[in-house]
């Protein structure tokens, strides 16, 4: 069996974290889910989610990098990149 890539592992953690939010979205998130549009989260909730992820992966996401992120997959790619993977 092929091992999951670093990015896929990050995607899995993000989806798990979204599922554990106080008000999780009705449908399970996928790598293609648009974070700002599809999750029903306001800007503060998105910021808090990002800060949780930053602690989980021990990275800081610069605001210009964050501005380019649309989907969960984009977010995972950015985190993997910041980890130097």
């Amino acid at each position: 069996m092929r091992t999951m890539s670093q990015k896929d592992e990050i995607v899995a953690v993000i989806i798990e974290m979204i599922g554990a939010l106080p008000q999780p979205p009705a449908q399970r998130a996928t790598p293609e889910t648009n974070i700002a549009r599809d999750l029903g989260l306001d800007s503060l909730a998105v910021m808090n989610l990002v800060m949780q992820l930053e602690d989980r992966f021990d990275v800081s996401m610069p605001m210009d990098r964050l501005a380019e992120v649309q989907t969960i997959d984009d977010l995972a790619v950015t985190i993997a990149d910041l980890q130097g993977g």
Partner: protein
Amino acid sequence: MAILDKFKPQQAAYTAMKTTGRDPFSVCFDEVVTPSEAVLKGRRIILLGTNNYLGLTFDRECIQDAVAAVRQAGTGTTGSRIANGTYGDHAQLERRLAAFYGCRSAMVFSTGYQANLGILSTVAGRGDTILIDADSHASIYDGCRLGGAEVIRFRHNDPDDLHRRLRRLGDAPGNRLIVVEGIYSMLGDTAPLTEIAAVKREWGASLLVDEAHSLGVLGETGRGLTEEAGVMDDVDFIVGTFSKSLGAVGGFCVSNLPDFDVLRVVCRPYMFTASLPSAVIASVTRALAHVHERPELRERLSRNAHRLYRGLAAEGFVLGPRVSPIVSIRLPSSEVAIAFWNALLDAGIYLNLALPPATPDNAPLLRSSVSAAHSDDQIDAALEAMVGIGRSLGVIAAPARRARDDQRAGVRLGEATWGQPGHGPARVAVTGS
């Protein structure tokens, strides 16, 4: 799609709000009569939301100096300092500001917003990193966007999170600039500046403190939180405004850096905008002297802030974590906040309505700013109106009911629950702070 169609959601929200009462963002006073009173549609109202902390807008000496300056130097400078030259008054105010802070240099900007825009976009450039508190004012966010530095947010008032983020940067090249505010404008809370300064020293970063709401308010001589926390030597840049405690308009930055004045030829928001008219410079120069010479203004302000804060806390309102001239009531929903704000204006009290997403923790706020110019009677009138409306809207319980609820919930009087973004709810004592 028409060019402004992208604002349709905001347009719809704004229209909906206006149909439920007045337009909170376009209140037009017939006349502003004193620092604490205005006339609105023929009625006298108390101003409790104008950041006029020391009440100097109608100070006799400030007005006299402004009038003399407009007669002597004319109505405006008609251009920037690099193009039209510096008037002697600008240079004198910069010397007075530097002396007031005990700093080597000072630069005056045309607004406080432009001071942040100019300093942040210029001192940190490509390859540098700016670390800003997540609850920073819009001018700090905008100043960061205008420049070339990478921008990283840390959790509001959390020195440990700041420390982690500096550690994560490791030995990456470039300078680090930490940005915090003396008093945060929405809740009136202050930065934990002693701890922030320790983190700054540990990592060899630079530190900028925006004292917009704390100049003339905090510190033994009114220099702000930097003075109150005793960390003047750790702060590399203090930014501030003339439009709050100093009662006019304009902004500034002071610094001890030897090469600070080079900013005059590289800082675009300083170079490419008209300089302040002499009348403004004259009233600000006099107001700064008042901060220095009249500590009783600060004492009066503090007394008024305590009177309002304690009065509201005793009635069970949920407030910010510390007594400050900014006293914000947290409300359960935007609908209640809008109704409360309208009812207060009907009762003759003007303050600020702050709605998400401009507020911490996405909580709608009724934001008061207390002034040294308020009389006890004015504060008491505001308290009475707030308590009456708070009870009728169910924001606070009537006295008998409240005593029962408090017993049942095990909540001690004088405590409130206040959540901070990223912190989760924290129990904070609201009296004696």
